């Protein structure tokens, strides 16, 4: 899930030229969970902008419920069929969703001008209605098999792979007194699972070519192809 936070309304206002016709688009999946671009938030943003003199010609959060804005086929269908007139009239689209959703709106409107209404901040677990936190850094080569399911890149401030540095005090990381040392968390969980032996193995340096953007995933005849600067990584998901 891509966590997003709205940009301050003053910043959003600074994006618009005088007389610009704006259509606001939200997302009923991640942005709704983050209270940044769901139906109530999108409606409210349209209202706030109108109140501040922006020519908001409409808004929408593509349905059915829970479908991500970044699903191009659905967003294109909804915008071009249900909002055909407004899409044609709009000078630009203010998107209350993650960066992927924003680009989807560009594609769905055949190259329409977009303004980001949110900052996309991380990929997170929805722990509760009002708390989302990051456990995965989308690095492309998952090693949590060896760290009791806890990711050292995401939990260790320095992203160390072979164990902790010497900076932790009372189990807290040197960067922030309230933050647990990621490696201490990994150690405790491995210990509970009886797998401390996994800490002994040397972990090789990370392949950062797999982290270079943009990356893509394609499917062809039952084969998944992950394309990054590290090349094409192919996996067949059936016998």
């Amino acid at each position: 899930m891509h966590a997003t936070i709205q940009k301050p309304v003053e910043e959003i206002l600074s994006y618009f030229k005088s007389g610009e016709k704006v259509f606001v688009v939200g997302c009923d999946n991640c942005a709704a969970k983050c209270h940044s671009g769901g139906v109530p938030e999108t409606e409210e943003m349209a209202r706030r902008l109108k109140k501040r003199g922006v020519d908001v010609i409409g808004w929408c959060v593509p349905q059915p419920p829970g479908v991500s804005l970044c699903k191009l086929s659905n967003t294109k269908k909804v915008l071009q069929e249900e909002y055909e007139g407004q899409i044609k009239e709009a000078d630009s689209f203010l998107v209350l969703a993650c960066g992927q959703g924003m680009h989807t709106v560009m594609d769905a409107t055949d190259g329409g001008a977009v303004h980001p209404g949110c900052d996309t901040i991380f990929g997170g677990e929805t722990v509760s209605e009002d708390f989302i936190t990051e456990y995965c850094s989308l690095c492309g080569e998952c090693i949590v098999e060896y760290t009791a399911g806890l990711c050292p890149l995401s939990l260790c401030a320095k992203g160390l792979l072979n164990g902790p540095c010497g900076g932790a005090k009372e189990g807290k990381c040197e960067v922030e007194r309230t933050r647990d040392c990621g490696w201490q968390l990994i150690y405790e969980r491995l210990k509970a699972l009886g797998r401390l032996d996994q800490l002994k193995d040397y972990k090789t340096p990370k392949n950062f070519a797999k982290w270079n953007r943009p990356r893509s995933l394609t499917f062809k005849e039952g084969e998944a192809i992950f394309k990054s600067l590290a090349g094409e990584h192919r996996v067949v998901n059936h016998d």
Partner: protein
Amino acid sequence: MSTLKHTLEEAVFVVTGEVGPPKGVDLEECLDSIEKIAGHVAAVNVTDLQSAVMRIGSLAVCAKLVERGIEPVFQLTCRDRNRLALQSELLSAWSLGIENVLCITGDHPVLGDHVEAKPVYDLDSVQLLKAASSLNNGLDMTGHELEGKPELFLGAVVTPEADIPELQILKMEKKIEAGAQFFQTQAVYDVPQFESFMNRVQGFNVPVLAGLVVLKSSGMARYMNENVAGVKVPESIIREMEETAKGDRKKKAVEITARIIRQVKPFCQGVHIMPLGWDELIPDIVRSSELM
């Protein structure tokens, strides 16, 4: 062969010192204070942007020490350079006559004065040691042959007073497998804990130098407890300093440091003294520790 390596091999109790380069290009004061301690220590560590504060580089200061016939320990952190730059820096160090390298993680940028800087940590300290060992064997990290190979004496750090000693020991073992030939520890204050730690690592047969920070005041001790990664001064010592009159502080600093050295001497191969500005006390500390 580096003097440090030779001295450790001879099983002579070793004393190393440390200096932090200045923020700027005026090196006179820094080099002068090193000259003062040079005769009393086997080698002098030069820190690498410690506490993530931008300063002149360890490489430059180490090169100046070599010019003056003083043996440096080049501290190299993983914080600011990727694997290309790290390997290159190791080769550069060797070409400048630097032989001893301490391969460490490095304090996070948020602790320093450029908090928005991009933390690199392309390699961790274990991977850096492995890369350095590879260079010593005439190959770079990706297996290419070098035109001429260094013979670096590789060191690493361990924290005996960490919350989970077992975790530190696990990593220490990995560091040794990756090529660490000596260790300098973070500051030691709890002697029984240090003894127990050393009992557990004795079997690794790699020399360990106990780290000591010379405390100037109780205020400094509290500041370090709050702000400096890896340092934990116990309340008992802070109280001891609080009860000392201002004029007697230097004497007390020598007394405490020398006392800890005498106590840890039976279980380690040397000490690493971090004077943090009071370099002139090192000769007194060495004398009071009855090391000569």
